């Protein structure tokens, strides 16, 4: 029906990650997500934003409203032009990390969202889409 409201935020520093978290929290609350759902989604956003910064060399996130019947929520699309992910299956394994992390960012975020998708081409970049609704 109505065109989804879209906005873009940069992810170039760890301050940007803090700002993304705050904006995601604000919008998730406005969409009517409960406190637990908000927390899950903000946490997932924080994980993916950090990957965009640390592994993707920085990028952007697009925020759009989800409106589908009684479903109301938020979708985030993270994009970078970094090295890309050679094996998405591997990257999605609990504990797999190439950067000395806990290796839970991608696999854990997938469990925290209603929608989760990774597109990546080595040498071109990575796009991660996550969404959560009530």
């Amino acid at each position, binding site marked *: 029906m109505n065109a989804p409201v879209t906005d873009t935020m940069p992810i170039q520093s760890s301050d940007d990650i803090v700002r993304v978290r705050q904006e995601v929290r604000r919008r998730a609350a406005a969409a009517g997500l409960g406190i*637990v759902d908000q927390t899950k989604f903000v946490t997932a956003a924080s994980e993916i934003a950090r990957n965009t910064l640390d592994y993707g060399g920085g990028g952007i996130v697009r925020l759009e409203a989800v409106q589908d019947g*009684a479903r109301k929520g938020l979708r985030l699309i993270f994009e970078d032009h970094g090295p890309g992910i050679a094996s998405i299956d591997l990257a999605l394994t609990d504990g797999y990390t190439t950067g000395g992390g806990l290796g839970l960012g991608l696999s854990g975020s997938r469990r925290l969202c209603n929608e989760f998708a990774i597109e990546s081409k080595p040498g071109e970049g990575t796009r991660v889409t996550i969404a959560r609704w009530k």
Partner: protein
Amino acid sequence: MAQADIGQTIAKRRAEILKDWGHQLRDGGALSSGRLKEAELDTQVREFLDLFVQAVSTNEADTARKALRQNVAEVSRARAIQGFTPTETATFIFSLKQPLFDALTQEFGKDSAALIQGLLAVTEILDGLGLHSMETFQKSREEVIIRQQKEIAELSTPVVKLWDGILALPLIGTLDSERTQVVMENLLQSIVEHGADYAIIDITGVPTVDTLVAQHLLKTVAAARLMGADCIISGIRPQIAQTMVHLGVELNVVSKANLADALGAALRATGRTVATIKSASGGSALSKA
């Protein structure tokens, strides 16, 4: 005939249209249930018609149309929440057709080409709004149902305080994953509110537990530990125990045969003992009761 002409006609015959429409609505029983007050209906009717005129006559039809759709959505949502039926809700819009037809007929009666054009235009707009009304109604009903389901889940599983710092959650009936989630969130919140060290989840009254529910239970135990509280699961039936073992979850979940044992364990763990009062004749006070 241009839309602006329709707008002019309606504006000119506003009072008469409002009266007719009001009659149509009352005859259709809009007020009979008592859910809607007369004054409320009058306001809704007037607001709608004025927005309708703007939507067909201004140059900024887009903004005006949006406002009109918004108005329809609000009225429909309110009716959904007040418990109107879909038909009653749609009638609000469709009952305007006849009054508008009458007005246009009186205005353009002789110019039949213009009249038909006018009727078609009005029909198209009202039908569109009618659909929009139904959509909003449906959506709002769904929201109401979701909220009620949640409330029922919360009501049907109260967290009770057994002792200072010891809570119990007696679960009764079949657990689906949705209900388990609500109940578990409630329990964790209660732990904070009561400053409880121990929470006993009693599943004596639960006939079966599927994999998903068992996982929720175990996740709750893990979450409680992160908050600084311990959980004891009591009353696990043999069958459920099997499900849990199949899940590979002998975990560090403390489990007890029944609620009494669990309470005893929690009391001991918090440095208390339960003693029999010797002076009571013929054994303990409890066994006499």
